[in-house]
């Protein structure tokens, strides 16, 4: 045990964990997707290291191996429910937990409509498996407000009518929250980059940028 811990602390991937992860298709797929995320992420974005990848893979394997019961922490509440391994997080949040404030657009990771926060980072709920998110802190648009008090970013969007039809708004607000959590006074370019993954067909992009620029 001590030897294994040393291996991990050195920043490498332990041989046993590697075998555990790569020996199972689901785990392998998860590694692949994480690596892809690392490759695509901007330089300043914090990405999980190899150790975290393995730990994550192990967790997924455990979840998949379990008899379909998963515990999800959503908006501060714990939900234990039966989850099929192929169910996306978007599906479970909307159809099993009734959180229909989370909108689904393309259902294939292109439009950003289903953005949520997973452990404080924006994630596309339509391309994330529900079992993959067990143990993580999931926040949807319904979880931003503190009772009757709107989240500051929601207030910004409300006061500036920063939406038209509103279908992409929850996902866009989540992107803005993630940005403003890191940078309370972002630059124009930072805002544009942060929101560029949120396609808005009503397209009043001016207002969206200027709203977020006001900061919180």
């Amino acid at each position, binding site marked *: 045990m001590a030897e294994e811990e040393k291996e991990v602390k050195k920043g490498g991937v332990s041989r046993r964990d590697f075998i555990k992860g790569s020996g199972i298709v689901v785990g392998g797929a998860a590694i692949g997707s994480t690596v892809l995320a690392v490759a695509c992420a901007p330089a300043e974005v914090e990405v999980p290291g190899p150790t975290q990848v393995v730990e994550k893979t192990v967790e997924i394997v455990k979840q998949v191996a379990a008899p379909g019961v998963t515990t999800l922490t959503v908006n501060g509440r714990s939900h234990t429910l039966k989850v099929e391994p192929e169910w996306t997080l978007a599906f479970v949040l909307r159809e099993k937990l009734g959180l229909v404030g989370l909108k*689904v657009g393309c259902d294939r990771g292109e*439009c950003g409509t289903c953005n949520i926060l997973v452990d404080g980072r924006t994630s596309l709920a339509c391309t994330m498996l529900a079992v993959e998110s067990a143990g993580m802190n999931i926040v949807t648009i319904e979880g931003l407000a503190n009772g009757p008090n709107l989240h500051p970013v929601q207030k910004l969007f409300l006061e500036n*009518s920063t939406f038209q039809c509103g279908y992409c708004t929850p996902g866009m607000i989540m992107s803005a929250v993630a940005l403003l959590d890191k940078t309370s006074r972002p630059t124009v370019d930072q805002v*544009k980059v942060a929101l560029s993954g949120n*396609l808005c067909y009503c397209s009043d*992009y001016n207002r969206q940028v200027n709203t977020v620029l006001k900061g919180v």
Partner: protein
Amino acid sequence: MAETYKETFGAKDYPYKVLGKNKPNITAADRVTGKAMFDYDYYLNGMLFSRSVHSPHPSAKIISMDTSKAEAVEGVRLVLTPFNYPDVFYEPRAYFAGHEIAAVVADTQDIADYACNLVEVEYEKLPHVLNMYDAMKSDAAIVWPDAEQNLETSEAGFFSEKTPEGLYAKRVNSPVQGFGDVEQGFKECDHIIEVDDIRHAMQHIPVSKGRGIMVDYNSSEPSKLVTYYTGSKGLYADRARNAGVLGVPLGKSHLVSPYASSFWGPGHIFGGPSFERANRIASFASRDLGKPVSHHYNYHEEMQISNYWQSLTRVKLGFKEGGILHAMDMTHTTESGKNTYTAERNAVRAGGMLAYNRNIQHMKLVTRHASAHRLIIFSYVGYGTMDGVFAVEMAMDQAAEAMGMDPIKLRQLNSMKKGGFDCAWSRPMAYCSAEGHAECFDAVAASTNWASKWGGWNAPNTKTGVVRSGIGAGQKTHTGGGWNGSAMLCKMFPDGTFELTSSMGDSGQGEPTGNLMMAAEVLGIPYERGSMIRGSTGFPYSIYLGGSTGTWNLGYSTWEAAQNVRKQVLTLGAQLFDNATFEDVDMDADGVFLKTNPTDKKTYVQCFAKLQTAPAFENRGGSYEVAGYAYRRALKGLCVPREKGACIWELDVDTETGGISNLRATTSDNVGFAMNPDALYNQQSQGANHGGPWSLWGGAVTDPSSGKLLSYNWIYDYPSTQMDITTTCILVELAGDESHPFGATPASEGQPNPHAAAISNAIYNAIGKRVIHTPFTPANILKALGKV
């Protein structure tokens, strides 16, 4: 990139307390918290899900279907085919690749999708034609079995000769529409320009919203047989169409649509034939299974049915010396689905007859529609009338060049005038009640420094280097602003609050907010005390309402309903003063008072208590209401304001790659009175971000053998993002529609119209080559440059 740059051109100091100021959208809280319920968000107990089987062939007879494997799947409840449900599918035929030819209803969408793949279909493939240009050839396969050719000419006349009084009041149905003697008119001209083979492809790239419908047929509740949950902005019209499918009485059917997503594609918020099939599937399945049935399109289906929409135009313009437009001859052909014959007419109306009605004396218009085995079921792909405006604005630029005139000056000289003939989209004949193109052009020209950047017609020859900058202009005109009426119920309560009720849907363009602002203005009560109930056919009638047209149209009834309430409240309050009538008193946030003594104020509780005649109840005014209802048409003197504006695009063209970059749009509108300026800026920004990308990047890739869409993604079908276009929005506030209570005019639906033309004109200014086919892809630019 997108940056805010706002300016108001010629704004007036209006005396209003509420109107003219930016107010947060009244639906803001729902939209920023995720509580806004779109049709796809409704879940009912026992609800079932329907999905469709699609034809892979563009034209085929369906010989047989074997549904046994699909029906054997656990969770499948029903399989609908043309053979067991002819009322759903009409006939066992496929008219385009992707056509819905069967449907599976199951416990979940996944099961339905899976079972759809198990439906075995035997086809007899038939000859087909995959685009409207080929469809117009004499040897083309005929799309419709009952037709002799694919090209039809519209005969719904909308113009005639003048009456002896000088009015265009006659309407004659004819394949050739217009007035005057065009042949003679051209003989009288000094300059004639003719541009043919102008091709426009409008592609409304969808951001998927799960479009569809849920039908809840409940035979055990005979007082309300059917409830429809959908996204609509014309709830009564959609209910009528939906209820007609099953023959359900209107009084026993109900349609709910509190929020409509912003998808103006085929048949969603504006209804339409394509949507009818979803409705039919869900309606029959719900009736026969006794369960709510949801039929919503998936991403692939939405992309397929949002595929581009083509048009072909010839424009001939005749000018007198000095640039006076004297004669116009235009033939406009659109690819138009069966049951949809309005698009091509709107296009020529907006682009030609309406936009340039100032001087023209002779006009001939022919509008046609051509069918191909492609998307035969749409009503509109995108909104506005870009295709017609594109053609005319390209011709206007070429005419300006031929005459050596500034293209903006030429447009200003001939643009729509107040009192000029209208496009007569509605009956009877109408006249334009507002103008303002010239001022809108002045505004965008000043903002962009046009005078120094345009550089004259020789400018392209002076530009060198690989990347060359260009600037181009286009006129924005649209037929928006019809006068069909809508109804509003206004209520006021003793605590000084008020409420509006209307069936109107809402896609967030600000029409509920605008109407609430108008009511607050009339009542003299703070806007924040108002609320609005809407989104159901349980509420008063409204037509299809969208954007500022909705505010403009419904505003008449809102104004009158609020005036009605105001008069009743003042009448009640006057009873509290000696010898006073309603004309002697006024009202504000706190109550009713004598105009001669505003400090002696009676509360609304006191006023409302006068509704109760029994003295013992005089202090119980708190439980009453005063209500006013109005159904009012905008019609006054047969005037319609229509939409009018201008735009300028600036861009860079890479002459080696054909790429276009550094896109900057400056757009203006005469909005009459900007009741809620932010809502209008929103519309302008949206128009630039739609009209530009539709013409720049609408590059759908289809299978050449079947027409099936291959580019199911936003890489080929690219919508604009935060990073693409810098937009500058300018509101021009000139005299609006004098018939409107607040002088508002529409400025919404036509927002995309001028951008394709302005971009094409900017490309010409950059490289000296006319590109009259959209989209302006690198390949098309290089082709124009002679490099491919």
